[in-house]
């Protein structure tokens, strides 16, 4: 598909991810087949060669993310997609990309787990793994989507944020959103904001890939362009060389966090509906947000003061937005296909100022509007 003007299509979430990636300038994809993410790879295996890009099926997910990081260091926008078991295998190299500050996008279409779980069934059990799955203290950016159009937009945004902040970005979807088909408007290319990777403005002799800059994000030169430098997962100095010196480690570590924390306004996105007077705020994300929206509408029709806060960014956690909702809310309802991973975060922010009630399901079936309505009535 060659998109020239805004087009309306009946398309699947996975397709929208693939199209969003192409629109964002993806030129390298490495992956290993796994349900329910495989469609993304299959589509890109057709699309990428047409633009001279690279598609490669690797021997496993560890190698997939490794190849993605290698390609990104060599200057290509690069991504991979996977699901539960594969996401587990990617954790070590995900940490490498965080520490070495290499942009890349990792799509995880969540399926029911742990272990092999239910490969074709939806879940939202990887929220905490996305946050803390790789070892060591680290910042991370995780986006999500609940409509096919959002799959497209959030994929583009994942690339843009990863390039802007030199960080891996995880797009955390669920099986329902990835497999669902709906009428989708794909914007015209000129209406899509695409950020190209900032390049160093200094000659190679002056280039330090990890130096402190005003924006906390030093530009990343590509391998093979005259800037010969070192990349390592060891703690490193501004040149990228391993260091044991606290006076080099601490500033680097602080910058790593600061570049994300000081930019939560740009990174964190939510959508509020009917929040102005809401006594009950439903906090939802992914496909569950669709059921939550329906439940909210039905409750409103009965005159209940219910609002919806839909999360589009999961990490950094939308603390501000939850905080704002506490002004009116006496109660937060958090439906999710797990045992309460985002609920814990809401509790952390609410600090007892309102009730926080979870609506959970983890047996591979979706949460229905009825289940949410019942929880609304019950508490």
């Amino acid at each position, binding site marked *: 598909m060659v998109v020239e003007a805004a087009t309306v299509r009946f398309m699947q979430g996975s397709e929208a991810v693939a199209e969003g990636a192409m629109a964002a300038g993806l030129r390298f994809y490495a992956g290993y087949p796994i349900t329910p993410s495989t469609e993304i790879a299959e589509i890109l295996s057709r699309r990428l060669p047409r633009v001279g890009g690279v598609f490669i099926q690797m021997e496993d997910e560890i190698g997939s993310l490794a190849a993605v990081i290698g390609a990104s260091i060599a200057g290509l926008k690069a991504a991979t997609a996977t699901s539960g078991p594969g996401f587990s295998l990617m954790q070590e190299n995900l940490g490498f990309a965080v520490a070495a500050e290499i942009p890349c996008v990792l799509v995880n279409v969540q399926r029911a787990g742990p272990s092999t779980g239910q490969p074709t069934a939806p879940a939202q059990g990887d929220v905490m793994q996305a946050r803390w799955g790789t070892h060591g203290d680290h910042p991370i950016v995780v986006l999500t989507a609940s409509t096919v159009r959002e799959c497209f937009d959030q994929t583009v945004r994942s690339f843009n944020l990863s390039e802007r902040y030199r960080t891996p970005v995880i797009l955390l979807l669920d099986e329902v959103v990835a497999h669902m088909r709906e009428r989708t408007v794909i914007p015209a290319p000129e209406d899509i904001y695409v950020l190209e990777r900032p390049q160093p403005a200094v000659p190679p002799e002056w280039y330090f890939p990890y130096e402190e800059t005003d924006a906390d994000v030093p530009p990343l030169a590509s*391998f093979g362009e005259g800037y010969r430098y070192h990349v390592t997962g060891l703690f490193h100095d501004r040149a990228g060389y391993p260091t044991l010196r606290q006076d080099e480690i601490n500033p680097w570590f602080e910058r790593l966090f600061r570049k994300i924390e000081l930019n939560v306004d740009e990174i964190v996105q939510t959508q509020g509906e009917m929040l102005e007077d809401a006594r009950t705020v439903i906090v939802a994300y992914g496909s569950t947000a669709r059921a939550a929206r329906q439940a909210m509408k039905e409750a409103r029709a009965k005159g209940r003061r219910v609002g919806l806060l839909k999360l589009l960014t999961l990490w950094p956690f939308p603390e501000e937005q939850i905080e704002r909702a506490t002004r009116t809310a006496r109660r937060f309802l958090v439906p999710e296909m797990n045992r309460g991973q985002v609920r814990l975060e809401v509790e952390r922010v609410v600090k007892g100022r309102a009730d926080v009630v979870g609506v959970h399901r983890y047996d591979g079936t979706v949460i229905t509007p009825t289940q949410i309505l019942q929880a609304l009535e019950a508490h």
Partner: protein
Amino acid sequence: MTMQTLPPIHEYLRSHKKFPHVWCAGCGAGNVLGSIIRAVGHLGLDRDEVAMVSGIGCSGRMPVYADFNTLHTTHGRALAFATGIKLAKPNMQVLVVMGDGDALAIGGNHFIHAARRNVDLTAIVVNNGIYGLTGGQVSPTTPMGAYATTATYGQIERPFDIAKIADAAGASFVARGTVYHILELEKLIEQAIVKRGFSVVEVISQCHTAYGRLNMMPTAVEMLKWQRDNTISVAAVAAGKSAEGKITRGVLVDRELPEFTDVYFNQVVARAQELTGRAER
């Protein structure tokens, strides 16, 4: 392309990097780095066009000292990172340095698949028969009966033959050298770099600290002598000398096979672009 005079090795080292290096005095890793650099120098390669990628281990610390585009990755994964670089920048010469555990234990899967794919990478496996960095545990190339910190009663598993694996997995070029035969090693690495396709150079190296001390060769010199006395060149074997009980050195495999990036860009991309016009939207 070959330079008239050999460029001094320090031209390829990062002089501003805080030397001394991390290796024990007498370790083979430094010698291997020297050979790689001399091979690159001989070939007159543009440093900007060379990437050196490593995994984790004592051998993995090599790239930081070399003035190329250098990447120190995760344990066992160097070849997969290198595959990404090569496919993104097919004109770069990508050298991959790994330890024996790095390449054949944790990284064994990437090793055989890189060979099968035949991506144009030069893989240099520093085979010291032990896990050096972590202090002397058995590796997949530790000889049977040898001692290690995790084989207190002697290694009971059979070792891998790295060159045979590379051959069976489909590499274009496979060679074996030792640190003792250092001039020969440099030539083998040079040939491996020039060869289009996946090339493997297994280097028998010495780790007297972690291996030698547990196996009655507590100095680097003793271990180097062992390399001298227990290996024989393929040329000598061809001339009729007996290889009985010895490890062969030299070029073991050299064959013409389709190389991955060539096939990908000349066939897959070309075919996809040709079809774009008439294929489904």
